[in-house]
């Protein structure tokens, strides 16, 4: 398994869930921008599951040397890369912030995804799981830079799914909704609408096994987003969302 964004609690919970369910991986490749934390996780899965893994540093804001990834081969790619950045009030007109959000969530991420997608295509097997966001379903005033990058990522995954369909590679888009993770710590989230990383991992694993195309982590989010998507624009623009 290849994991992009290995410090993500959801990614870690998913790896644990898959191993608990008895999935076999020769090696797990843990891509990360935070080596220390990820090495702790690597040791953890070694102790808990005797699972071999390799920690690979990847900083999406820097130049990427793809030659390093030549020998990496797997049949599952799990991408949990995500960067919320500053909200619009603080960060909208801060170009550095805007660029970073777009880079990490989309423009620098997609080439990496494509690199591995190509390998999967050549092997004619595998599953690509991408964590997008409900924020990408409709731009809202509170976080639309992040939302727009995620919207682009959602569109990318959808197109990739379409492209890889007859090459026997499956692409799964996950739209998590609120999750109780580092990204949202301290935010006033409604507990009924918020999934723990473990809960999220269980949902994603189920969607992975069922080969779903698009899945919300908590089913309630599909209803919420259905409503939000269908509010007429002339009303929506007046809402404080």
């Amino acid at each position, binding site marked *: 398994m290849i994991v992009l964004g290995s410090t993500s609690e959801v990614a870690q919970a998913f790896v644990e869930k898959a191993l608990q369910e008895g999935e076999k991986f020769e090696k797990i490749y843990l891509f990360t921008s935070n080596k220390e934390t990820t090495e*702790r996780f690597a040791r953890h899965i070694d*102790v*808990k599951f005797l699972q071999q893994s390799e920690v690979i540093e990847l900083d999406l804001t820097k130049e990427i040397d793809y030659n390093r990834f030549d020998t990496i081969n797997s049949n599952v790619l799990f991408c949990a890369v995500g960067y919320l950045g500053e909200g619009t009030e603080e960060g909208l007109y801060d170009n550095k912030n805007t660029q970073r959000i777009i880079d990490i969530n989309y423009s620098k991420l997609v080439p990496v995804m494509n690199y591995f997608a190509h390998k999967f295509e050549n092997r004619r097997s595998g599953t690509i799981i991408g964590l997008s966001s409900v924020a990408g379903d409709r731009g809202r005033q509170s976080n639309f830079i992040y939302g727009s990058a995620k919207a682009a990522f959602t569109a990318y995954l959808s197109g990739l799914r379409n492209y890889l369909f007859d090459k026997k590679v499956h692409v799964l888009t996950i739209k998590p909704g609120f999750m109780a993770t580092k990204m949202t710590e301290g*935010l006033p989230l409604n507990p009924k609408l918020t999934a723990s990383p473990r809960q999220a991992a269980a949902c994603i694993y189920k969607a992975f096994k069922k080969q779903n195309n698009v899945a919300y982590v908590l089913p309630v989010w599909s209803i919420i987003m259905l409503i939000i998507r269908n509010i007429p624009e002339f009303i929506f623009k007046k809402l404080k969302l």
Partner: protein
Amino acid sequence: MKPNFTQKVTNWGNYPVVEKEMRSEDSFKKIKDFVLNHNEIIARGNGRCYGDASLGESIFSTKKLNKFISFDRLNGVIECESGVLLSDVLEIAVPQGYFLYVTPGTKFISVGGAIASDVHGKNHHAEGCFSEYVIEFKLMTESGDIITCSREENSDKFWSTIGGMGLTGIILTAKFKLKNIESAYIRQESIKAENLDEIFKLFDESESWTYTVAWIDCLQKGKDIGRSILMRGEHAFQHELPQNLGKTPLRLKKKLQPTVPFYFPGFVLNALTVKLFNWLYYKKQSKKEVKNFIDYETFFYPLDAVNEWNKIYGKSGFIQYQMVIPKEAGKEGMKKILETIAKSGNGSFLAVLKLFGKHNPDAYNSFPMEGYTLALDFKVNSKLKKLVDQLDGIVQEFGGRIYLTKDSMSRSSLTNYLKNIRSSKFVSLQHKRIINNNS
């Protein structure tokens, strides 16, 4: 949306509820920043203690310190971060033929919490407290420095942290020993006792058993006072097991885990329903003595089978009252305690009686002392304070003390037994309450 780390926090008893800052970090550097930039910090694991322990002005949750570090499968030595739960340890230890030396009645407590409370189990008389098997731990002190504490290194901090209720710093990682087992099953004997005399006799007779505990019907009066069922057990050897269990002795079948869906309304638990429950529980076992094999989860953690069982006590919550009375006065003290409870009508859904063995003099902050300990659940209501005060009076009279991990309203004279913990940085609401009541 701006981060606001203030939130409602409460321990397992849902009493008291406070609104305080709570943060969790997984990098030691960030934890150090937190320690240096906050005052009156207390670490908190999974919040399975009962009263106002682990609550403070600034709470550091160890939930993200949830990684294993190493497992020496040959010698049964495990090292992990302090937020790892005992249930996580069991998950990897049991299939390998290892078990926790000491476990409390729930497996959903953190390793850090087990050290800070120096938890005891059904085998205290035979194997002591959790700390007996701790090799070393890493502690973040007031200055944000990380020190290794063991019997040899920083031994003063080692012993004051054990049972020290988090008042000496934040435990980051811990290394401890596990015990060998051949199966995940317990050979159990349960014996009914008509009254207090009989149950005390049974405890004496069972001293050679590793695990002993008694469930006690605390609403009985007169000659029936102390009506109870003693359960004693040993880890079953593989060859003892019946054939159906013996094939895969270290694997348990997955069980369904129901969850209590909402806080029960206040009237559900009352003197009548508690009486009925206790009657049914006692009558369920029709024979005087039953011998059987049960899996370790049923034996050690019967309540863990129902998620969020604390909700049955309703929104106002409950307290767990656990005291110990020195052995020589034990029987007389227990009788008085049970009489007082029966008279109050404030029955306890679950009353557990145990015999503690000798206290480890090195672990001076640990709660257990040689004698009898009784743990009782009481729903919080207007009459409770008075009852607790009456019970405190009896415990005091017989020279006993109260378990800090479960305390929220007892007399400070019974709870103020910790030594070498003075710190202006690490302060819990419980400790403040105890100190303030004392002066």
